[in-house]
C-alpha cells in the first residue's frame, strides 16, 4: 500500500486559500473494519442496514409536497417517502445528518476541510461542476432503478449475501471501468 494515495492530492483543482499539510488517511483495511462495525451495529439495532439514496427521495417528496399533496400521494414513488406528511422526519435523512457531522469532525481534525473543487489538471472548474451534476443525476437515477446505492445495496446487501446486491456491485464496477478511459482527463 505504499503506492496508494495516503494524502489529499496536491495541485488538484482550485481551492480557496492555502492549507496546511493534511494528515494521512487511515489504513483502508482499518477503516473498512470500523465501517463494518457501524454496519453491523445498524443491523443489530434496526434490523436493516445503511442507506443514503432514500434521504434524497424523501427531500424530493417534500419538495413536491410543497406544490401539491394530492400529487405526492398519487405518485408511486413519492408516496412511499411521504411518511404521513412528514417526509423530512425520514430515518435516512437523519443518518446523513449524522454522516455530515462525522465527516466534518474527521476532516477538521485531520486538516482536510476547505472550499475546493476536486478535479484533475486537464479540465476546468466549470467542466468539472457540469460533470458532477450529470454524474449525480445518473447515480441517483440508477440507484432508484436498482433499489439502492453503494450503501443500501453493496454494503448492506453484500454483507447478508443478497444476490441482487452482489449483481448490482458487479454492474457498477463494470460500467465504471468501461467508461474510465473516456473521462480520464477529469481525474488524472
Amino acid at each position, binding site marked *: *500500500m505504499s*503506492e496508494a*494515495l495516503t494524502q489529499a*492530492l*496536491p495541485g488538484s483543482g482550485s481551492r480557496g486559500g492555502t492549507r496546511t499539510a493534511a494528515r494521512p*488517511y*487511515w489504513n*483502508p483495511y482499518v*477503516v*473498512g*473494519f470500523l465501517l*463494518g462495525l*457501524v454496519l*453491523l451495529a445498524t*443491523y*443489530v439495532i434496526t*434490523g436493516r442496514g445503511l442507506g*443514503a439514496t432514500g434521504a434524497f427521495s424523501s427531500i424530493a417528496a417534500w419538495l413536491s409536497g410543497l406544490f401539491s399533496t394530492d400529487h405526492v400521494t398519487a405518485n*408511486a414513488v413519492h408516496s412511499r417517502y411521504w411518511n404521513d406528511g412528514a417526509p423530512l*422526519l425520514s430515518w435516512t435523512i*437523519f443518518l*446523513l445528518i*449524522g*454522516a455530515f457531522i462525522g*465527516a*466534518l469532525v474527521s476532516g477538521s481534525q*485531520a486538516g*482536510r476541510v476547505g472550499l475546493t*473543487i476536486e*478535479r484533475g*489538471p486537464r479540465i476546468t472548474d466549470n467542466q468539472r461542476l457540469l460533470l458532477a*451534476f450529470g*454524474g*449525480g*443525476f*445518473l*447515480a*441517483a*437515477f*440508477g*440507484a432508484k*432503478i436498482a433499489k439502492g446505492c*453503494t*450503501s443500501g*445495496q*453493496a454494503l448492506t446487501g*453484500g454483507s*447478508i449475501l*443478497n*444476490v*441482487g446486491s452482489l*449483481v*448490482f456491485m458487479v*454492474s*457498477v464496477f*463494470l*460500467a*465504471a471501468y468501461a467508461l474510465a478511459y473516456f473521462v480520464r482527463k*477529469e*481525474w488524472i
Partner: protein
Amino acid sequence: MLPFAYHMEFSVVADLAIAVLLGFGFGFCLERAGFGSARKLTAVFYFFDMSVVKVMFTAIVTAMVGLFLLSAAGMLAISDLYIEPTSYAAQILGGLVFGAGFIIGGYCPGTSVAAMATGKKDGMVFALGMLAGVMAYAELTPGFEAWIKATSSGEVTLPALTGIGMGWWVVAFVAFLLLAARGMDWLQRKFSHLRPRMT
C-alpha cells in the same frame, strides 16, 4: 434477542437520535478513508489506488462475519433481517447507470455527503444532481416501479440459491479478501505511473 428494534418501542426522537449516531460513525469512516475526495474515489478505476475496494470489501466481510457469529450464537436470526428483493434486470440496469454516474460524477450518494462536509463544491453539485435525478425518476418514469416488481425474484441470498451454508460463504469471502489484498497491492504498483505527482 436481536435486533433491538423488534423488541423495544423506540420513540420517534430516540429513533432519529440513533440514526444520527450511526450516521456519525458512517461519515467519520468515509472521510477517514479519504472518500470525501472524488480523485481518491475514482483512483480505483485507474488501478493506482484500490482503497475503495479495500474499504468496501473489508466492511462487507466484517459485517458478514459479525452477523454469522451472532446467528451461530443464537442471538439473531438472519431471516429476521430485512433483505431487499432481487430483480436481476433492475439491479443490472440500475447498477450500470449508477456506475456511469459514479465515474462521471466522482462520488456515490453517501460519499457526496462526506465531500460536502469537507467543503467540496463538486460534492454539493453532485448532491443537487442527485436530487434532480430522484425527482426525474419519480415524476417522469414512475412506471419503473411496476417493472421492478414484475421482474422480482423475491428474496434471494447466496446460501438459499446454492444450498451452501452461510458459514462456508463467510470462509470463502474472508479467503478471497486475503488473496485480493495481495492482488490489489500488485495492481497499485503496476499502475503507479498514473498517480498524480506529489509536489
